[in-house]
């Protein structure tokens, strides 16, 4: 015990504490970055958040905006509470990282030194993955996988469509942001069509054969949207390889499908700054240590949220927020020379398949051989045979979760 205590005293006098107060820079003010900046600040550290936009537009619940069930204003959040908390907020894009000198360069040329850097840049859409689907094509066939103008564009397209039209929605292979998100969107678009344009059809083309909460979604579709929503998996020829803008068609190996409204969700990778910083591997995503979320490739740089490879954890706002808290505590320990404990994280993702009809998937994660893995016996999806009151409760909890997570991230 005496030995231990003396060793501990030595550890707590590690250089970072003895010298100037350590500085943490966080790049990206979304669910991961904003949550992490706030948690680091609560732990007493000096924090600067780098985020180009003055207003953040949240993706969770943006599918209800697309379906006309919710106003866009409720998706928007500012950074005033972060400033009030004493976090420096630079409304700039980070353009470079010098990991040797520990400096971040911003778009205006200014330079921020750091002791530890957190990257939470979210996703970049791969405009090189589907033939003909580039940024200009996204103005015609919106992805709406970054919330904001794209969400409003898809909403406007659906509103302008005549009754009797066809909507085509394409889904990428794993991994991508929000695994159940495309199927929630399909459900809510189907709800809009059934209630407002009942002679219309929705065709969902998927690049895979199995997906998140599949049995729950399929049971709901059969009950709520029979004859309206057609789902084509990979094995049925669902993999989209390109688009033909002039004909408003998507291209598969088995033929083309025309749509009056076409929503292409393209393949994705980590946000560009992750690659620029050297933290992304050949997959386009960032390998990290599961206890600290420190990059496996670049020391003193941590990657959280959609950009990181979090093993069994999905790319969700819940996960980004949970990782942000664990990462903030790990950084606080590391800056004090203390070891980082074994990690444990949770995830819960709700989807709405219609108003008042919620379903969920949950997980508990621990590190197994350096990768976050499902805890055996825990997690899973809502029961298949749950009564309507259960589905209603989960729809209510989904709303409540959104209120809590956005309050935690943005105040």
């Amino acid at each position, binding site marked *: 015990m005496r030995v*231990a205590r003396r060793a501990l005293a030595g550890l707590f006098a590690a250089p970072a504490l003895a010298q100037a107060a350590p500085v943490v820079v966080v790049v990206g003010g979304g669910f991961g970055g904003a949550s992490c900046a706030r948690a680091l600040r609560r732990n007493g550290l000096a924090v600067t958040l780098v985020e180009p936009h003055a207003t953040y537009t949240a993706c969770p619940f943006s599918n209800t905006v697309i379906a006309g069930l919710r106003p866009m204003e409720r998706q928007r959040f500012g950074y005033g509470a972060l400033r009030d908390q004493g976090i420096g907020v630079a409304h700039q894009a980070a353009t470079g990282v010098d990991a040797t000198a520990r400096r971040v360069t911003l778009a205006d040329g200014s330079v921020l030194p750091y002791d530890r850097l957190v990257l939470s840049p979210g996703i970049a859409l791969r405009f090189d993955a589907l033939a003909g689907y580039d940024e200009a094509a996204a103005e015609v066939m919106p992805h709406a996988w970054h919330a904001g103008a794209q969400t409003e564009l898809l909403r406007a397209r659906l509103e302008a469509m005549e009754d009797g039209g066809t909507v085509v929605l394409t889904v990428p292979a794993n991994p991508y942001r929000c695994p159940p998100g495309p199927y929630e969107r399909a459900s809510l678009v189907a709800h809009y069509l059934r209630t407002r344009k009942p002679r219309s059809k929705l065709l969902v083309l998927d690049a895979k054969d199995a997906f998140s909460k599949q049995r729950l979604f399929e049971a709901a579709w059969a009950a709520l949207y029979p004859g309206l929503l057609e789902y084509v998996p990979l094995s049925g020829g669902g993999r989209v390889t390109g688009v033909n803008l002039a004909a408003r068609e998507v291209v598969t190996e088995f033929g083309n499908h025309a749509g009056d409204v076409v929503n292409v969700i393209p393949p994705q990778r980590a946000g560009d700054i992750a690659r620029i910083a050297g933290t992304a591997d050949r997959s386009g995503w960032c390998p990290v240590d599961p206890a600290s979320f420190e990059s496996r490739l670049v020391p003193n740089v941590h990657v959280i949220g959609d950009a990181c490879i979090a093993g069994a954890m999905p790319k969700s706002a819940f996960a980004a927020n949970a990782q942000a808290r664990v990462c903030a505590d790990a950084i606080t320990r590391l800056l004090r020379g203390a070891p980082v404990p074994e990690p444990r994280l949770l995830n819960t993702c709700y989807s709405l398949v219609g108003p008042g009809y919620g379903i969920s998937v949950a997980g508990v994660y621990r590190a197994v051989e350096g990768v976050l893995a499902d805890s055996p016996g825990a997690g899973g999806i809502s029961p298949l045979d749950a009564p309507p009151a259960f589905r209603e409760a989960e729809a209510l909890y989904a709303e409540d979760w959104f209120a809590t997570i956005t309050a935690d991230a943005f105040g």
Partner: protein
Amino acid sequence: MAPRLALSLLLQAMPAFAGEAPPGASSCLGCHSPARADGAIPSLRGRDPAEVAALLRAYRDGTAPATVMDRLARGFSEAESRAIAAWVVR
């Protein structure tokens, strides 16, 4: 060897700073807001930690009705659940 092991165990268990969460606990705040008292999902701030630990045990055993807490509580042992309960009510 023995003192080194003891030290590493001690360091794992010791919080490095005030209010540090035990493993798994900080994720709870993603739904259970310490700031919002009016939510459909209850805030746990100020609750009796023994009562919260008992609830976690009941969710784990499947003896309390739940939507998602049964699926989450099964990921933790009794000792882990007690540590989480003690922290999450702060």
